[in-house]
């Protein structure tokens, strides 16, 4: 097990290097002067521009800029954004927001998805199953933009059940509406996956064997069906969770949630290579860690998989 974890971490290092270098190169190659964006349209005197350029190493060649950014990341010395925001403070502010939003959204998604999926899987072609398939089809076909705008207008502005935007009302109240919409949109996929998985497992040979051996229904359900049916679901949830540090750019914008997605989007717009690389590194590390955790969990659920 330890060797498995170690190997995974070691292979992650060159990948991380390529990811950060690639992202930095992409941002570097974007046209336009990063500092220009700061000024808006008001001209900034050449002397001020030159001073800022030196402060953010923008006068250095590409590879030096990249190495300086990586140095800042590894030494934990994040500095400030071009606009003067303290990056460490921004992370302290934003990481909790992103965590709260994703975890709450995932809680909705998992609860609904697993409950309906399992029920529909066991009562195949029943009323619940058929309506589930229909509802999830519709949900998967609704563009996210529509759902966010409509939900905000109907439930927050008109009915006033939820705050319109922002996080002033704290957790969970401020996060409920966006999390519900994300959860509902995501629930469709999870429920369908869970249903399929249950159907397949119920009909699998080993379940029939277990029944034939005369094991009790409860035992078959908990020991054989559920663990096996959950395997693909765990993979899916892992992928979903792993992507969360990418942030939810559009949701965060519409609901004015100061999370990592907005930070990333803003950094791209301002061509702040350092910030984009920092956030990509964060996303990458969490991606690797969560994937690792999922694989380990997989090993616990599935006795056939053994990491030597």
């Amino acid at each position, binding site marked *: 097990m330890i060797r498995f974890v170690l190997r995974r971490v070691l292979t992650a290092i060159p990948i991380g290097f390529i990811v950060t270098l690639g992202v930095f190169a992409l941002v570097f190659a974007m046209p336009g002067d990063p500092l220009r964006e700061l000024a808006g349209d008001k*001209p900034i005197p050449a002397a001020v521009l030159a001073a800022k350029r030196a402060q953010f190493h923008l006068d250095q060649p590409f590879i030096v800029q990249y190495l300086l950014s990586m140095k800042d990341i590894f030494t934990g010395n994040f500095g400030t954004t071009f606009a003067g925001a303290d990056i460490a403070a921004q992370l302290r502010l934003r990481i909790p927001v992103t965590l709260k939003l994703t975890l709450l959204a995932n809680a909705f998604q998992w609860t609904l998805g697993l409950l309906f999926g399992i029920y529909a899987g066991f009562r195949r072609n029943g009323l619940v199953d058929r309506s589930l398939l229909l509802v999830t089809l519709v949900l998967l076909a609704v563009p996210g933009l529509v759902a966010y705008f409509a939900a905000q207008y109907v439930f927050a502005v008109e009915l006033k059940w939820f705050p319109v935007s922002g996080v002033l009302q704290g957790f969970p109240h401020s996060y409920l509406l966006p999390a519900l919409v994300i959860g509902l949109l995501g629930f469709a996929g999870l429920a369908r996956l869970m249903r399929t998985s249950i159907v397949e497992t119920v009909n699998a040979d080993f379940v029939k064997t277990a029944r034939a051996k005369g094991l009790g229904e409860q035992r078959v359900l908990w020991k054989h069906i559920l663990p096996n049916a959950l395997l693909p679901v765990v993979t899916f949830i892992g992928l979903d969770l792993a992507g969360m540090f990418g942030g939810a750019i559009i949701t965060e914008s519409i609901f004015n949630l100061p999370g990592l997605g907005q930070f990333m989007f803003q950094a791209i717009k301002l061509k702040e290579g350092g910030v984009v690389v920092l956030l990509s590194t964060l996303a990458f590390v969490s991606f690797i860690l969560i994937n690792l955790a999922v694989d380990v969990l997989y090993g616990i659920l599935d006795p056939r998989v053994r990491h030597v």
Partner: protein
Amino acid sequence: MRRVTGVLGATLGLALVLGACGDGNGSSSGDSGGGGAKSAVIAIAADPLEFINPLNENGSPGIQIAQAVFAPLVATDPNTGKTVNVLADSVTPDKASRTWTIKLKPGNSFQNGQPLTAKDYVDSWNLTAQGSTAWKNNGFFSKVEGYEALNPPTPDGATPKPTSVKTLSGLKQIDDLTFSVKLKVPFSQFGLTLQYLGLAPLPEEVRKDPDAYKREPIGNGPFKLDGAWNPGDDIKLVKWDGYKGPNPPEADALTYRFIPNADTAYNEFLAGTVDFVDVPSTKIKTFKDDAPDQWVTSESSGANYLVLPAWDSRYKNPKLRHAFSLAIDRKSLSDLVGLATPSSGLIAPDINGYRENACKYCSFDAAKAKQLLQEAGGFSGPVNINYSTTSATGQIFAEAIGNMLRQNLGVEVKYTGKQGSEITELADTRKLDGLRFGGWGHDYPSIEDYLTPMFKSTGDANFSGYSNPELDKKLAEGDAEPNQDKAIKLYQQAEDIALEDMPLIPLYAKQNAYLHSAKIEPRVSKYTGVQALYSTFK
């Protein structure tokens, strides 16, 4: 008092920018506000500020906060439009309008108790004028004698050479309350420019270590910070009793809340959580129904133009420019924009010196447009129209203009959407292909603040790369003319030259709309616009 536009108005629209708002316990809804009885929550549709330092701030949100926390030397009287003294006792030019002597009123102080002196102004301005400080209002001082010594010209991309000069030779302290500014050339409008909040002084302790005070400013204005202010939080202000300026705001406490998505900010107002909000460009048609009896509009917020590239010879012929201008149906365009009036000149209608029909080529006349285009020899290739993707309505307005040119002139049209900053950069380096939008809001209410920046060959917002020595001469004559009425006449002659050459095609002047809750009534003035800061309470 802002100069934000350039790429189609200040509309942030759907611009997705840093989201923020403090996370946590707060319950500062519109009804509870800060400490006092008269309090209001003002929504600002922009990124949260990272610091409060008027000298390093030239955007509208920052200047809005600076208006509350700091006080200017002079201001425009909202009732008469005349310039009145605030912290200054007198502002006196010499005969040539070149050396200006500013005398401060005695007895004013900073919020830390230190008296406000001429030294504070001189030192703060010197600090800003140093290029190495890298503060945004540095450019203001380029008119002052000695600026080049502090900002030696650097080749593009090079690190600036350190200079030992730390003071502007044109800036002199005379006594505790008096200082003088000597300009490089005569400038009759300099007194007006002193109302810019970006010139507010910082006290000595802040000047020594500005970074230490970036989140705890020490102002000299009607409000001060209420408690600690952390990144992303609302800015909460309470009345400061030490402010002795004329006509202080009525509010006891104000909360500024930053909501970057303008449509979201608007929704917040509809849900009743903020007391004041700007109407985003996408809601101009509906706000009167959304909030009946709770809206106000400003007279104007500057003027908007279509910018023709002077560096592209295909657009050189003035007849072609006039043809483009005549092909635009400004009435329909203004209806599309909403709350807009068709332009008939280069300056905004609320500025002294505005003439009803200054422009001869600004009416809609498709037949004449076609004829002029023919006389100019037609146009080869498609007309490219650049629009900013950061503005919610940039693409819509570009298509409207494109359709008119295509259908009324028979030219081919294509569109390019780019980030606003990229368009500006391409234009500044004379590489931009085709037309773009430009907008201008004055820093101080003078016809000169439209003509000099946009049409003078060295103007700092000369969008089109336009240059005409005759016009420069007229401007210089106006600058040197101490009699304001005579100066305006000279400036109008300069405007006529620009209208004949037409480097910019005037489009429309737009009113801004704002919503306010029932408990406040924002101050609306023909001269100073709509100000939530000076709301009256019911």
